Structure formats: structure tokens, C-alpha cells
């Protein structure tokens, strides 16, 4: 009996060594970090961190919880996180973080790899938090808010970015673990959401503003929200969004199409030393708004709308791909990865000259749009 008990106990003790980093940590002993902003002080060569934490001490029970900024400096990110404890009663808790904002200056000059490595290596950080680039002069500025406003900026940013691809389709969403694996892979096709301050009524708020294009881990440029939508088409990541076309009236767009579903296939052809990338998209839309006086019950008119919309998508996808090819030379649509995965021999052949080949790759886009629903007015 005693022997059996000892065996059981031994098993429990052995298994104990297999579990990760854990400890009893009361909720009253932590500062819940919701958002993190990383800036780099070039003179001191240290990171300036701003943590937005939930301010639980001062809030009353019936009020919504406010955010509060804690700042800390350190030689590395972990160093800064620990240094923050010198000013604070409680330790920082990264288990529920939503957003990691990186300043554009640092992203251009130092790259972003240094800023994300710790969040994946440390056992207490959340790998699903997403990375964004600040278009303001510092990253910290994005997390700031007016004094009298309730709520937590990072939580708002999280909701804006997370829901974007199924509502307005103006930016990308990239969790930190995906950023890491993209940086580590051959693809190097990284794009991140961009944040900036803007006016909403008379309030200054943080808003999504398109996406940032990376080459390696370094920022090379931006895409506007409109360009980002067609980039999403090319990535096959678009879930919803509005397409506007111009049918009857030549001055303004008069028909809104709501995207129900869309899928994009990418392929390539290698012909006489030249690579041609073929992108085929197929999109189901509904006519959501129509002030063109056209009868959308007419098949011929619907056919025209489909053609017009398809043409518009084709042109825009082409334009955005051309922009990253020519201006940024950044392979954010993963052409190299596609070739690497489908034809390894060819990739080995092209690998060394890829930098020269990439800007001149010919891209052929065909977009089909299918109207599935014309809406109904009462």
C-alpha cells in the first residue's frame, strides 16, 4: 500500500516538472497591461516603453475602467518591464495584452524583430496580441488619450483592427506569433496595420490607417486604406467590405456592392526565363445601394455591373502590386514563397537574383464578380 502510494506521489512529482512557468499570483498583485508601445532612444541606446494598464485603484464600481500609462526604460524589453516595478506597487502582467505598437522611426531603422522576440520567448506573454506601426512621431502617442475620456485605448484599437477585415477591409491583422514566423521564413512578406491619431468629432482618437509594408523586418512604406483593401484581395484575406462603382452617372460612384465572400488563387508560370504571376479572384457581392436609376432586376444590367466591378478590382489589385514591386521592392504578397513551395528547383535557380527579378515580374489579374443578391426596397 505504502509502496503504491509512493509510486503515485513520485509520478505526480515527475509530471510537475513538465508544466510551464506558473505560480500563485493574486489578481490584486498585478498591473494588467493592455497595450504596449515601443520607442527607441538612439542617444542612450535604450528602449522607452509605455504600458497602458487598467487603472483599477481609483475607479468606482459603476464606472467603466480607465487606462493609465506606465513608462519605463531599459536596455532590452525585458529589462524595461522589470524596471517598471521600481515605480509601481504591482508587477506588470502581459497575459492579457492586446496590442504592441512600434514607432515608425524604429521600424525603419532598427527593424521590429528586437521588439517582438521577448513576447514569444517569455512564458507569461500573450502570443495572439497583434503588432501595429505608429504613424505619429512616437509609438507612445498612439496610446495617449484625452484626460476626461473613459475606456482603454488599446482595447479600442484591438476592436478596430480585429473587426476591420469583416467590416471595412482597410488594414491587415497580424498576431505576434505570425509576425515571428513570417520573419523567420523565406517568405518575408510582412505587412502590419498602421495607427495614427485623428479627429472624430471634436475628440482626438486613434484610428487605423491602412497598412505598413516591410522588407525583412524593416519598414519600407505604407499602403493607404483603399490600397490595403485590394492588397487583402491579393492575400485572399478579405471577408467583407464595400466596393463602389460608377455606372450611370459619370461623376460620382452610384452603386455600392457588399462583399459576401471572396477567394483568390495565386499561381505562376515560368516561360523563357520570365516569371508571370497569375492572380484569379472570384467574389460574391450583393447590391447594397443603388442611386443610378438602373433596373438591377435586368440581367443585362447586372451583367454590366459584374463586368465593371471585376474590371475595377483587377485594376486596383494590379496597381497595388505594382506599387510594392516598384516603389518598395517588398515581396509582401509572397511570390518567392509560392515559387519556393511549388518548384524548389526553379527557386534555387532564381534565389540569388531574386532582388533584380522581383520588380519586373509580370502580373496578370483576372477578377470575376458575381452578384448574388440585388437587395429589395419597400
Amino acid at each position, binding site marked *: 500500500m505504502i509502496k503504491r502510494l509512493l509510486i503515485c506521489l513520485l509520478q*505526480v512529482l515527475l*509530471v*510537475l516538472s513538465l*508544466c510551464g512557468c*506558473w*505560480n*500563485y*499570483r*493574486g*489578481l*490584486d498583485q*498585478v498591473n*494588467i497591461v*493592455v497595450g504596449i508601445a515601443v520607442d527607441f532612444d538612439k542617444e542612450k541606446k535604450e528602449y522607452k516603453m509605455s504600458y497602458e494598464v*487598467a487603472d*483599477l*485603484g481609483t*475607479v468606482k*464600481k459603476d464606472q467603466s*475602467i480607465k487606462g493609465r500609462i506606465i513608462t519605463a526604460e531599459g536596455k532590452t524589453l525585458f529589462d524595461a518591464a522589470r524596471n517598471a516595478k521600481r515605480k509601481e506597487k504591482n508587477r506588470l*502582467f502581459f*497575459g*492579457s495584452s*492586446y496590442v504592441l505598437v512600434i514607432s515608425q522611426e524604429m521600424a525603419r531603422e532598427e527593424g521590429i524583430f528586437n521588439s517582438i522576440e521577448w513576447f514569444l520567448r517569455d512564458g507569461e506573454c*500573450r502570443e495572439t496580441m497583434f503588432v501595429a506601426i505608429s504613424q505619429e512621431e512616437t509609438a507612445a502617442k498612439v496610446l495617449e488619450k484625452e484626460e476626461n475620456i473613459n475606456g482603454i485605448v488599446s*482595447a479600442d484599437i484591438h476592436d478596430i483592427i480585429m473587426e476591420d477585415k469583416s467590416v471595412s477591409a482597410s488594414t491587415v491583422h497580424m498576431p505576434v506569433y505570425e509576425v515571428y514566423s513570417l520573419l523567420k521564413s523565406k517568405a518575408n512578406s510582412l505587412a502590419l496595420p498602421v495607427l495614427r491619431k485623428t479627429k472624430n468629432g471634436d475628440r482626438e482618437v486613434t484610428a487605423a490607417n491602412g497598412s505598413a509594408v516591410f522588407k525583412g523586418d524593416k519598414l519600407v512604406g505604407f499602403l493607404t486604406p483603399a490600397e490595403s483593401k485590394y492588397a487583402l484581395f491579393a492575400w485572399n484575406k478579405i471577408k467583407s467590405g464595400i466596393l463602389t462603382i460608377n455606372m450611370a452617372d459619370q461623376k460620382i460612384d452610384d452603386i455600392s456592392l457588399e462583399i459576401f465572400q471572396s477567394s483568390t488563387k495565386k499561381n505562376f508560370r515560368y516561360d523563357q526565363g520570365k516569371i508571370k504571376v497569375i492572380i484569379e479572384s472570384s467574389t460574391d457581392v450583393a447590391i447594397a445601394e443603388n442611386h443610378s436609376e438602373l433596373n438591377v432586376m435586368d440581367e443585362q444590367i447586372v451583367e454590366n455591373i459584374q463586368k465593371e466591378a471585376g474590371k475595377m478590382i483587377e485594376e486596383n489589385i494590379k496597381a497595388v502590386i505594382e506599387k510594392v514591386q516598384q516603389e518598395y521592392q517588398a515581396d509582401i504578397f509572397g511570390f518567392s514563397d509560392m515559387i519556393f513551395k511549388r518548384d524548389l528547383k526553379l527557386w534555387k535557380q532564381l534565389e540569388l537574383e531574386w532582388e533584380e527579378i522581383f520588380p519586373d515580374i509580370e502580373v496578370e489579374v483576372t477578377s470575376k464578380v458575381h452578384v448574388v443578391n440585388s437587395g429589395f426596397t419597400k
Partner: protein
Amino acid sequence: MLRFLKKLCAGKTTDIDKKIAGLNYPLEERKFSRSLDENVAVIKKLLTDVDIAQYKLIQSAGKNPARYFLIFFDGIVHSEIVNSNIIKPLMNSKTEEGSPKLEKLLATVVQAGESKIIDTFKAVIESVTHGDTVLFIESCDQAAVFNTRQFSTRAITEPDNEKVLSGPREGFTELLVQNLSQILRRARTNELKTKMMTLGKRTQTKICVCYLDSLVNREVLEELYRRLDKIDIDGVLDSNYITEEIHDYPLSPFRTVGSTERPDVVVGRLLEGRIAILVDNSPVALTVPYLFIENFQSNEDYYFNFYYSSFSRLLRILGFFLTLSVPGLYIAVVAFHQEILPLQLLMRIAMERQSVPLPAALEAVIMLIVFDILRETGVRMPSNIGQALSIVGALVIGQAAVEASLVAAPMIIVVAATGITSLLVPKLNAPMIFWRLFFLIMASTFGFFGLTIGLSLLFIHLNNLTSFGVEHLSLKGSFRLQENKDIFIRFPWPYMIDRPKGLSRNKVRQTGDGIDD
């Protein structure tokens, strides 16, 4: 002084006393002698200081009067019957030459429906304590016992802890024969066997083993008799005494012997091949074998629509898991794995925890004990001061403690959820109190990891339990739908063709011809 007293007592001894004194103890084992006087003396000796014993010496009429000696206990006999059916005919009877034969007396003089002949003093004591009247006659080494019992019992009412909304409302009482009559009314067949035995050296409690002959599993029956025979207990005041004596695992917190206060439940279980044990003076009948799933089954399941019954049964099972693990789960989440909470919820809980002095784990232990104190008080206290308890419970412990920031509000919710869900499965209350605390301690030392270990231990323990050789938690073997039609989901009656696995030697309940399967 002592010597003097002894002398005094010794001086009073008569011939018969000397005779008795010479006998070996115990007197009870002795057989009657042919002398009436000697028998009377022995009885009076046996019943020394038993003042409710009534003795009556009667002489018959006629020239040659015979002497009769009656003994009964005051208060538990029907005095009308004793007077008019026994004493009066005996007094009026005319005796011929010599002393009358006992058999003849029973046949011609005494007007009693139920009577029997005994020949030991032990039987006398047994009979009179039941309310019988014993008749001795001259020069006969036998005595007659007449059933003159009369004692008041409780009326048949619906048992408080097994109330139903629809269905039969009868419950058992403390009187064994009445309980048997309720069972007989529901199973009018000679297959229903009722084996009586007596247990308890001093209480001499009658118990009755009931089963349906063609359904019962013989091995279980033999095992039950073997265990009952081994019982050597002083007294049996309630059926739980027997439960603990015949339990497969006496130290396990889980019961492997079922209990109910309802005749319809007993007959339902008899029809599944189980055995019932009824104990005199206890309204609680026992049934064996007892499976774990029976904790979640209720007789009402069979009286309601099966969709509703199945849903309630699933709720009860859910309640079991919730009441076991909610406090542990809460502690594991707020002290170890905060990241699994949605941010808004996490911040709210963290806010509540800011101003509370005790760590969450300690708070949980204290609050659970407070809840158990309240629950126990509710059972123990006189019912007319019940309001005081609800005020203390709801206002002081609930509201005031939270407002004074002594206890965090989520903890109160957790304890309330635990308490409410525990009421879903009242039969498992006793083991759950301990397992819940165990899970809580495991969770507050190792988080989810500890909780998982605790749950594993619980399942290992449950899986090891047997009830009279039948698996308590039947998880082994392949799945057969027919055996599982009354486990989580109650199927409608026409589809329940087989009896539950392992209980009965006659597996088929009905032919199932009525349905197209």
C-alpha cells in the same frame, strides 16, 4: 452493613427462587418447566423492574377450576381484545377433569385470529415486547402467544426529501408491515419474495429482504445474505446502520447502497433485478446494487415527458461537475491562469480583488466553510427561527461582507453557484463537500494542473468502486445503445427493451414488438 443486607435478602428466598438461582445464566435460553409457578417465577425474575409488564392470574369457572397465567406489556396491547377475547372466555370456560390441553384452548376457548405455540423464555420476551399476549397453563411446558398488538404510527405521507410534482405521493413509514403492504400493492405476484430476519442483539430489529425471484441476480443475493449474516451489531435504529455494515468499501465517501423512502422507487428497482432491504422502524429502504448513475436519476424522470426528464438528468450531471469544480476552477483562473479570461471580465474581477484583504484561495476555503455552516444550521435549528438564518446568511455574509470589502463579490457568486448546484444532486452532497475542498486545495497549489490531477483521482476512485460485485461506474467494455437507454438520456418506455447491464439475470424487459427499430 453489606453482610446484613445480604443476609436479609437470603432470608427471603423461597424454594423456587433457590431453584432459579441454581440455574446457569442466561435465563432466556431455558425451556419452560411443567410447573406453572416455576414458569411464573422465572418470568417475573426476567422482568424485574420492568414495570410496564402486566401479569394476570385467572381461574376458570366450574368445579375443578384451572389456573391460567397471562402476561403482556401495558400500552402496546389492545386492551379490548385482551379483555373480551382472551380473559373473558378463559374465565367463563368450564374445565373438565385434569388440566386442559393448550391446543384445545386455542381451538375452542380463546378468540384470537393469530396465535402460535412457544416453549422458551426467550420467545416470551420477544413476543411481549411486540405487544403480544402470552398465556401459560398448568402442567404444560408450552405457552400460547396471541397477537394483540396495537401501537400508533405515523400516517403515510409524502417524504420531504423526495417530493415529486406528479406521480405517486406515498412514502414509507416506520412500520415494516405497512411498508411491505405498500410494496405488495405495487407488485401483486408470488414472485415477490419477502425474507424476514432479525438483526441487533439488543434491539431485535426485524429486517426484510425483498426481491423478484425470476429477475434477481443470484450472486448478488447470496453475497447480500453472506454480508447480512456477518453483521454482529448491538442495535439497528435506522437502515443506515445496515448500509455501513454491508458496504463494499466502508471508507469510501460514495455510497454503494441505494436508499429511498418511496415504495414506487423500490418496486421500480426490484423490476430492474435489484434487491430491497426494509428495516423496521426506519422509513428508508435500501436497494442493492447501487450504480453511480442512480445518484442522478429520480423517480420523477419516469413520470414526466422523456425530453424533459432527459434534460433534467443532464442538468443534474452538469450540476455535479459544477459544484465539484467551480471553486477550484475560479481559484485556478484568478491565481494562475488569468490570461484565459476575457479582458473586461478579468479587469472587473481584478477590480473587486483590489480592496480585499485575504488571498483568493483562503477566501474560497473560508466562504465554503461558511456556506456549509449555514447549510448545517438550516438543518439543525428549530424551524421557527429560520428567518434569523436567512438574514444572517443573505445580509451579513452576502451583502455586508462585500460592502465592507472583506470578501470579493465574485467569490460570493462562486459560493452561491456551488451551493445551488450542489442541491441538484442531494444524494452526492456528503462526498462532494470533501472532494470540492480537495479540488480547491489542489487548484490553489497547482492551478489547472492540480485540478486535473484531482479530477483524475476522483475518476480512478469511482472506477474502482463496486456495489455487490457490480461496477459502480460502468465505463469499461464496448458501448451498446440498448444498455445506455436509461443513463444520460431516458428513452421512452417502448424503446427500453433491456434491463440495465449487470443487474438482472433476465435481461429482456419487454419484447419490443411494438416498435419498428
